[in-house]
């Protein structure tokens, strides 16, 4: 185990996978400028800067992925992906199906999002659910340095297009990362804290808020389990249902806007498949249906807070 931050974990994953597989290439806005170590080790053919043109970055990645390369692209901030939707959704997500399975698209799209840096709505928009709703695409959103490394390595090895979202304020958070070839499988949730009274289901930065809430609840004699989804598509349905069957109470927490967010899918799945185990309603604690603000005060109002999660859990256990 070594203690490194998320940014370093991402750098390690990229270098290790490029070393392991010569088909892995990386390009995007400022990639070659910022990642000089990768350029030095792997050369300027495999690590490239691009024009500020997200459509062609994603299209180039899709075309290259289908013809033998394994591209990783950095689109910087998630809202910029709006310029790449045609290429990611219509090409990378659909051309395998449309062609009757003739092509595969091993490509990873990295983008930052999330409140914390007061960058405002055109640099911060948690759009992960858009991709969860789109066929042919996988979506991951890690919460720890170990998972940033392990899931990025898994994403690069995956033969499908994977959206890799970085919750911005986590970028310089430290964490223990296992030594060696650490790969975290896509589609597996992680239980961050065991509990018996209520399950807090979350992902990305909100996992840490849920852990703080669980700590507070513990002080009140309420035993909260914290489940980190890590992977949003596919999501670990078995882990979600197992935890719900254990606790019978569910709070789903995410920063993304509420309506048709990932929490809605989790809640619906629980209602559909574990209704008999539920001891009360399912509560969602989410960001509002509004663009992300830039004022620090409003940003804090946007992010689900520990207090709201604690209150939701209390109400479910009848306190």
């Amino acid at each position, binding site marked *: 185990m070594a203690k490194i931050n998320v940014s370093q974990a991402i750098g390690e994953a990229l270098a290790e996978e490029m070393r392991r597989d010569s088909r892995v*290439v990386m390009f995007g806005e400022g990639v070659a400028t910022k990642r000089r170590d990768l350029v030095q080790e792997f050369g300027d*053919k495999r690590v*490239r800067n*691009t*024009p500020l*043109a997200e*459509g*062609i970055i*994603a*299209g*180039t*990645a*899709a*075309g*290259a*992925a*289908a*013809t*033998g*390369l394994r*591209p990783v692209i950095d689109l910087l901030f998630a809202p910029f992906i709006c310029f790449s939707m*045609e*290429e990611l959704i*219509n*090409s990378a997500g659909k*051309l*395998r*199906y*449309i*062609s*009757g*399975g*003739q*092509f*595969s*698209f*091993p490509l990873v799209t990295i983008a930052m999002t999330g409140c914390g840096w007061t960058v405002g709505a055109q640099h911060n928009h948690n759009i992960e659910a858009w991709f969860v709703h789109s*066929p*042919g695409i*996988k979506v991951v959103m890690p919460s720890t340095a170990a998972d940033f490394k392990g899931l990025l390595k898994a994403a690069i090895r995956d*033969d*499908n297009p994977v959206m890799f979202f970085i919750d911005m304020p986590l970028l310089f958070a430290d964490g223990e990362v296992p030594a060696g070839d650490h790969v975290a499988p896509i589609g597996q949730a992680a239980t961050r804290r065991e509990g018996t009274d209520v399950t807090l289901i979350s992902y990305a930065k909100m996992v840490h808020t849920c852990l703080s809430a669980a700590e507070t609840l513990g002080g009140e004699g309420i035993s909260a389990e914290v489940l980190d989804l890590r992977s949003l598509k596919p999501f670990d349905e078995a882990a979600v249902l197992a935890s719900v069957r254990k606790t019978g109470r569910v709070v789903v927490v995410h920063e993304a806007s509420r309506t048709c967010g990932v929490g809605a899918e989790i809640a619906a799945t629980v209602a559909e498949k574990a209704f008999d185990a539920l001891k009360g309603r399912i509560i969602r604690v989410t960001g509002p249906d509004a663009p992300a603000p830039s004022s620090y005060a409003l940003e804090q109002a946007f992010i689900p807070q520990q207090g709201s999660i604690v209150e939701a859990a209390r109400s479910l256990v009848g306190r």
Partner: protein
Amino acid sequence: MTDALNERSPRSLLECMMLIRAFEEKNAALQAAGKGPGTCTSVGQEASAVGVVRALEPRDRILTNHRSAGHLLARGADPGRMMAEIAGKSTGYCKGKSGTLHISASDLGVILTSTIVGGSLSLATGVGLSLSMQGGGAIVACFFGDGAACEGIFHESLNLAAVWKLPVLYVCENNQWQAFVRRRETMLIDRLSTRAQAYGMEGRSVDGNDVEAVFGAASQAIARIRETSQPFLLETYTYRMRGHYEPDDQSYVDPVELASWKAKDPIQTTRRRLLEQRAVSEADIDAMQARVQQRIEQAVAFAVDSSYPSADEVATDVYS
């Protein structure tokens, strides 16, 4: 595929154009009779498809679009598997999952067919990047229309291909129509190849209804790409002689304009020229027509006799 690609004689180019025309007209007839879906035909544009595709080598790749039948057939695609695909049958090139709009045939190097206008432009740079990094001198020909040249991705694609020195032959089939809009309503220039200069690449326009001229221009462009490792913009100036899709009565088309282009029909022009040159006889042409008709009838029979995919195929091929 190899046989088709080796066939570059003027008479084989003519027969291939005749096959494309017969294929497209058969689909239109099937649609009109209520026996088939609407297709976007390439009638009038056969010389562009045949002239460019036959100038490529087997190692090269092709990206096409919703008006793809000419490119596929010129590459040697089986009309039966194409008809089956259009009919949504499991024996089609895409197991019936494409239908008419986005047929890919990767064993022929016709890959990643997208019906999104400009879709091929966004993917061509990636294919070019793979080919360039693999070495070996292969190129990718990317077919699109004057409509796609109005999309922002046209700029992004040509610019990146030039900057990265990617082996892409951009083929703009300027057929004067963008769905139901006249090209002249959407741009002030007449020759799209002049845009090449803006990206620091070579460009050229050619009479897209003259198959031998297209073949010559494409051959030269391809040689330039292999020699310089730079992309090239080739414009084939042609005309969409049928509607945007079937059925489309073209009531919005100026009849004088349509008649003037019908007088330049690429198949009739080539046929007259070869007869004048005594490169073919009337009997040769009759024999070609008979062969073409037989292939089309066989193709229809194959499609009709083929079965639909089973219902459990509805959610397969989503993920690798």
